[in-house]
């Protein structure tokens, strides 16, 4: 299977463990991930007010490129990129004014084909026809959780995972949500399929502090701590998530959380793709587990060799 | 000045009562339309409209209750359906669809009734007379002289 995949900037730099584990897992699912030619940053934040139309240009350009390459869908793992692409796409479908204005702007684009060096100057207007999918949706709808379950090579039942959705996968409901914002189950269903023990906890859709960790770094400590603490209190031994920013706030910044909350002594955080790749039998080196501030390796029975284990399904 | 003839079919419960209210409020308006009271706007079918044009009407007006307010639950929707299809036919038949107007006017909207009648009279005045008088063969002449 071949599908368009938009990694986003962070995955190529700071979140290589998310990128690598995604590629490793998808290779094991026989899925060829194709990046749209010449992709740029999606803009990270969707413009919420009508006059900031320029914020729509990068995501629509990316989507249009997917369409030019005859792709009908594009998959992302970064929750921020997902939300921007999906909202931009929806605006192109539902908002005629934005549709016209963005397409007028994009009509002036010049595209040089990297192989033929041919110049292209005429573009059809982009009408929101590309389907934007989060990898979790792709796994559920295209791969099928039943099928996924049948491919699991390792026993993960000892890993008690608290699935953390954060904001970007669930809100705003009408524009973005991959599931019901208050009682989502898609993440849980996925974790169940790969054999983890799922821990329900009430902070799964609460914000981690988001980009305030750059502008007012201290303010993100409390929300991040509450998420981690709640997961722990409810019996999890790891938090799984899909957003490099949440990961930064909750793992990379854990030493600062510890400074503020003295009783806190660290809690491992993983990308869901790391669990997926591991379940599918990937080598531990491919998961980038050494990059974590709070070492998650004790959770993984490193000696466990995928081929030797009989998984009881 | 051309004084258009306008045939008005008004539903008894809403628009006719609205026209009465215009009267009790002494609102003056152009006298070109004459009302025919029906129980419900849905009593009117395209035959009546065609007949009115044929008999000399330059415009036909149908007044009913606002959607959801019909005394007979949903008669006004039936009128709307008929008028929608009939307007397409009017275009094919060379009758300007603007010569037929369907409007929802409630018993409380005397003012709206008056404004609508004035406005419609002006519309028709601008469209000019319809002149549907039957031409005889001799008047009509023949083609290739």
């Amino acid at each position, binding site marked *: 299977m071949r599908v368009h995949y938009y990694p986003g900037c962070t995955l190529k730099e700071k979140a290589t463990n998310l990128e690598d584990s995604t590629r490793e897992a998808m290779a094991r699912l026989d899925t060829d991930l194709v990046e749209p030619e010449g992709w740029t940053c999606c803009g990270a934040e969707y413009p919420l007010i009508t006059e900031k139309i320029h914020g729509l240009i990068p995501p629509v350009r990316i989507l249009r490129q997917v369409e030019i390459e005859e792709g009908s869908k594009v998959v992302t793992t970064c929750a921020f990129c997902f939300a921007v692409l999906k909202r931009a796409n929806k605006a192109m479908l539902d908002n005629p004014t934005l549709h016209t204005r963005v397409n007028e702007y994009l009509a002036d684009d010049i595209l040089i084909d990297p192989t033929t060096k041919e110049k292209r100057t005429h573009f059809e207007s982009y009408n929101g026809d590309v389907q934007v999918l989060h990898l979790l949706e792709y796994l559920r709808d295209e791969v099928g959780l039943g099928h996924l379950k049948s491919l699991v090579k390792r026993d993960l039942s000892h890993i008690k995972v608290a699935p953390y959705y954060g904001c970007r996968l669930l809100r705003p409901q009408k524009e973005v949500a991959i599931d019901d914002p208050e*009682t989502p189950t898609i993440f849980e269903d996925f974790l169940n399929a790969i054999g983890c023990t799922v821990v329900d906890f009430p902070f799964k859709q609460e914000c981690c502090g988001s980009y305030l960790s750059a502008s007012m770094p201290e303010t993100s400590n409390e929300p991040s701590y509450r998420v981690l603490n709640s997961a722990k209190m409810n019996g999890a031994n790891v938090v799984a998530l899909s957003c490099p920013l949440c990961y930064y706030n909750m793992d990379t910044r854990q030493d600062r959380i510890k400074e503020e909350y003295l009783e806190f002594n660290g809690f491992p955080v993983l990308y869901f793709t790391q669990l997926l790749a591991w379940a599918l039998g990937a080598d531990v080196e491919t998961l980038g587990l050494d990059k974590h501030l709070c070492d998650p390796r004790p959770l993984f029975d490193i000696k466990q060799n995928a081929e030797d284990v009989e998984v009881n399904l | 000045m051309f004084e258009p003839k306008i045939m008005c079919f008004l539903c008894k419960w809403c628009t006719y009562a609205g026209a009465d209210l215009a009267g009790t409020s002494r609102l003056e308006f152009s006298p070109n339309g004459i009302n025919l009271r029906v129980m419900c706007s849905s009593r009117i079918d395209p035959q009546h409209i065609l007949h009115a044009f044929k008999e000399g009407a330059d415009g036909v007006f149908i007044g009913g209750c606002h959607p959801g307010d019909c005394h007979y639950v949903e*008669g006004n929707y039936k009128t709307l359906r008929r008028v929608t299809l009939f307007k397409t036919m009017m275009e094919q038949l060379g009758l300007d669809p603007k010569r037929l107007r369907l409007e929802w006017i409630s018993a409380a909207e005397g003012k709206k009734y008056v404004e609508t009648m004035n406005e419609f009279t002006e519309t028709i005045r601008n469209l000019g007379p319809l002149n549907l008088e039957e031409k005889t063969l001799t008047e009509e002449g023949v083609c290739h002289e």
Partner: protein
Amino acid sequence: MKDDGKKKRIGVFVCHCGVNIAGVVDVEKVAELLKDYPGVEFSTDYVYMCSEPGQQLVLDKIKEDKLDSVIIAACSPTLHEKTFQSAAELAGLNPHQVEIANIREQDSWVHPDRDKATVKAVKIVKSMVEKAIQNEDLEPIKVGVFKKALVIGGGVTGLQAAMDIADQGYEVIVVEKEPSVGGKMIQLSETFPTLDCSQCILTPKMVEVTRHPKIKLMTYSEVESISGFVGNFKVRIKKKPRFVDEDKCKLCNECADVCPQIVPDEYNMGLSFRKAIYMPFPQAVPGTYTLDMESCLGTLPIRCGKCKDVCDAQAIDYDMKEEIIEEEVGAVVVATGYDLYDMKALGEYGGENYEDVLNGLEFERILSASGPTGGKVQRPSDGKVPKNVVFIQCAGSRDPENHNSYCSKICCMYTAKHAMLYKHRVHDGNAIVFYIDVRTGGKNFDEFYQRATDDESILYLRGKVSKIFKEGNKMIVWGVDTLTGQKVEVEADMVVLAMAMTKADGVPELMKKLKISIDGNGWLAEAHPKLRPVESLNQGFYLAGAALGPKDIPEAVAQASAAAAKVGALFAKDELMHAPTIVPVIEELCSGCGICVSMCPYGARTLNAVRKVIEVNEVLCEGCGACAAACPAGAAQQLNQSDSQIFSMVKAILRG
């Protein structure tokens, strides 16, 4: 047409209405011009037609000139049509031969130009003459009334309506789908603002209903269908098998004692358990046990049979079958009540996942002496007495984006009651109420609310709670106090949601069958929100209680009595009179295409597929004429407003 070829003799009477008409319209000229119009026998003008001498003039002329139709050119027909119809009737003329030409409201009062107004008046009168030429004598349609009523729903509303109808001397059938009557009210502990015990006031009424000689109670039954029309309905009622003979059952409870099957108890909102064979509650009416076959271990393939074995009265019959009972009634009162909004929809409050987050009815059961805790306030999870209780108003109400847009009306009062009753039971407890607005419009309502704050020191915080979650054995409530501008977090032992009221389960489907319209929220739609609040547009159907929208007990009861009075007024007549300006079928022209059937909102037209014609129930026909306009064969013609009349009138207006 009445006059078999004979020319009609029409009288035209043009009213001056003082100067109201004559001040603008040249009335003499109108009368003069009409004299020669075909069909007109006599034409005159008079200063006040509606005055005594004016009416006398009409009366005399009808007799004198043997007029068989009259046109009164005067004010709007809404004012004096009835007046002149009565006058004409005195002279022996059929009232449907009287036509009013509206030359005041729709001419003299709106067109000051004398010439134009006069020309218009002439055309208006001529059009009415054209109509009159083809008018027929019509007699009102009479239909008998079957003086027996059906009440759907055995809650307080239904019972009140039944009692009030029965007390007027008419027979009533009450159909209730549950095993006992009593509805939601019987589940309440105490009622606001008087705090009298709900059961104490309702149980006597329930018993009274069973004893009333005019009332037939059918519990565990549902209305299958209703056909017919006002005064003459045929009802099919499905009586579900109870598997227990009501008459034989001695209420000894032995069957329940031996029954091995335990299920959540509906009466206690699932906070306790009952057996598969059970009595819903001790005062249930009718007093009998019911075997819930869905929960029963099954009589097949291997019958458990324990209950039957112990029943000395031999009241248990496993072979009881569902019965369809047919009844004839003349009127129907719909009192199907309400349900509480589904807690599952409120994911942010935990859905149904937290045992200690309760809805209002569940808390009523906890407060009730007959409830699962015997009236002691204990929380469901561990039976501990909660010391901090948070009450949340508007749960699911006033939220157009996610839930219901409307205000559920009773929650402010019952929340005050809940908090107050809680404080009565747990003196050292804290009650915190989150509200948006406190609405206490009702007799003694605000005083009651003031008692809650003044006497019981209940803390009211103005803000809507955003989230509830569990931490340890506490419920954490995230709220806000908008008055101080602080985000508030409360550790509560128990949370009570003032859950929105919503349409009762199955009501939209039933109403579709009864042809009663419902609004966007699923509440029954009244014929007119101001002037006909307990009637349906479908004649013979009366509506009452919370099925129409959120309301408290006194309001529901008042509506029940109002509906009963309406039924009484209907039954007071031996015959119903129905306007005869209906749309019958000309069978010679009708081929039964069926187009007019869906035109009729009243179901008056049915297709006889064998005869290939439409049959019209003239009692149901309201005479809107939608079918006449739709009939492509011209076989549906409205009496006294036929196509031919409309054509003539149009011609008179445009060419006259």
